C-alpha cells in the first residue's frame, strides 16, 4: 500500500476514534451501534428525542439487532447526551 494512502487512512482512523460521553447506557450504545458503523454518526449530530427514536427505528429496519428494551435505553442515552 502507498504511504499516502496509509497516511490518509491513519488520519481517518484517528479522527474516527469517537469517545461517547459516559453515562447510563453508554456500553450498550457502543456495543450495538458500532456493530455496523463509526460512532461519529452519533457524536457529530444533535437530535430531539423524537428524531433519535426515528433514527434507531431506521437502524432496526436496516437489520440492527436491537430489542425493544435496548431501543428504549439507546434512545434515552442519545437524547440525554446528544440531544438538542
Amino acid at each position, binding site marked *: *500500500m502507498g504511504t499516502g494512502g496509509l497516511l490518509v487512512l491513519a488520519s481517518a*482512523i484517528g479522527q*474516527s476514534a469517537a469517545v461517547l460521553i459516559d453515562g447510563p447506557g453508554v456500553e450498550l450504545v457502543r456495543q450495538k451501534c458500532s456493530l455496523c458503523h463509526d460512532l461519529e454518526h452519533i457524536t457529530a*449530530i*444533535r437530535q430531539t428525542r423524537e428524531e433519535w427514536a426515528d433514527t434507531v427505528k431506521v437502524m432496526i429496519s*436496516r*437489520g440492527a439487532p436491537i430489542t425493544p428494551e435496548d431501543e428504549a435505553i439507546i434512545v434515552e442515552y442519545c437524547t440525554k447526551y446528544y440531544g438538542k
Partner: protein
Amino acid sequence: MNSSDASNAKPDQGEKGIVTRRVFLKSAGRLGALLAVGSATIALDAAAQSSQAPATSPAASPAPPPPIPGPIVPNAAVIAEKDPVMKVLTERPLTANATAENLNDAVTPANRLFIRNNLLTPDLQAAGHTLTIKGLVDKQMTFTFDDLQKTFPAVTAQGMLECAGSGRTAFSPLPKGTPWNPSGGYGCPKWTGARLRDILKAAGVKPGAVHVAFFGADFGELPTAKPVVRSIPMSKALEPNTLVAWAINGEPLPKVHGFPLRMIVPGWVGSASIKWLVGIEVLDAPFKGTYMDDSYRVPAHPIAPGEKMPKDAVSTEAWPVKSVITQPAPGAKFKIGGKIAIAGKAWAGENSVTRVEVSLDEGVTWKQATLAKPGNKYAWRVFSFSAQPKRQGYVTILARATDSKGNVQPIVAAWNPLGYFWNGIHRVGVTVENA
C-alpha cells in the same frame, strides 16, 4: 436478508455472514495493529446477538435475491488504490472524497472519484459473475459478464455521479449522515456499458411496468443487514444514457466502485447507481425498502431549518443546478497586477447549464464566465474566468450557474432533514498581496 424474508432471519442464515465478518475482523485487526489504534475493533459476535425482526415487510415488495456473503476488500486495500488527496470521512461504512480543488480534471480520474458505501466492499470476480433481469418481463434472462458485453452494443459517455448528501456539512443545522465536505462527493468520469433500455428491450417489458429496481451483491457485517436496493421510474430507465457499466475511463471498474458491473443513472443521486449489480427487476410500483422509504427522501415543499420530515416527502431523483470552483485552491496567494485563473465545473441534473457567473465582491457584481463546449447530456460543463485583482487583501471568489429551465443556483440550498441536494453557491477565499 431482504424485505420479505428478513423477518425469519435465523442463525444458520448467518453462517456465511459470520465467515465474512471474520475476514473483515482479521483485516480490521491487522489494520488496527498496523496503526496502533483500536477504533476498528468489533467485540461482538453476530451469532451471539438476538436478531430482531425488521419493523416493516411490505407485501407489495418483490423478493430481491439474497446477497451472497463472500470475501471483502479491506478498507486499507481500497484506499491504497486511491489518490492521496482523497480524504476518508467515515470508515464504517467507508466514505471518502476529494475536495473541489483536487477535481479540476475535465474527466474525473477513477482514483479521485468519491466513495460512498452503505455496506462492505465485496471482492467480486468477473468470471462467473451474472446479471439477471426479471419481474414484469416477457422472459427472465441471465447474462454472464462476458455475454453481456458481447450481446449489447457498448456505449461510452461522460456522466455525473454525485451522492445525494454531497456538501451536507454546509447545511445548518447539520443533518445526520455522511459528513461530506461543503464541496466534495461528486465526479464526472467516462463510463462504458450497455444501455439499460437495450437490455430491457431484449427481455421484453410487460404492460403495467413503471419502475425498475437494481440489486447489488454487497453485504453488511451482520447477516441481518438489509441489502441496498433502489428503483427508478421507467422513463429514466429507458433514457439512453442510463447504463449497466463495466468500465470507467476505459478501464475495468475498481472493486470499490462496483466491479464488475454497476448501474450508472447519470445526473441523479448516486444511490440510484447501484454498485456490484447482480439483479434488475421490473416492477409495477416503486420498490419498498429502507433505502427507498427511510432515506434518500426530501420534503415536497420547503420547510424551516431543523423541522422534521413532513409526511409528503418524495424520493430524491435528479440533482438541481450546481457549480463548484476547482481552481484556485482555497488559501492561494496572488499578486496585484497579476491574474487569477478561475476554473470550475457546473451541472444541472436533467437540464443543461447555460450560464456561469463569477463574483469577486461577495455577490455585489457578477461577470459571465466562459463556458467550454458542452459534452454529452450528463457531462458537467467546464467554465473559466480570468480575474485581475486590483486591491490587496482577502478576496472571496463565488460562482453561480443557471440552467436551461432558468433555475439559478441559490446562495443557500433548501434545508431538509437528511441534508440532500446541497447546491448553494460555492466560495473560495484567496489572498492578494502587493507586488
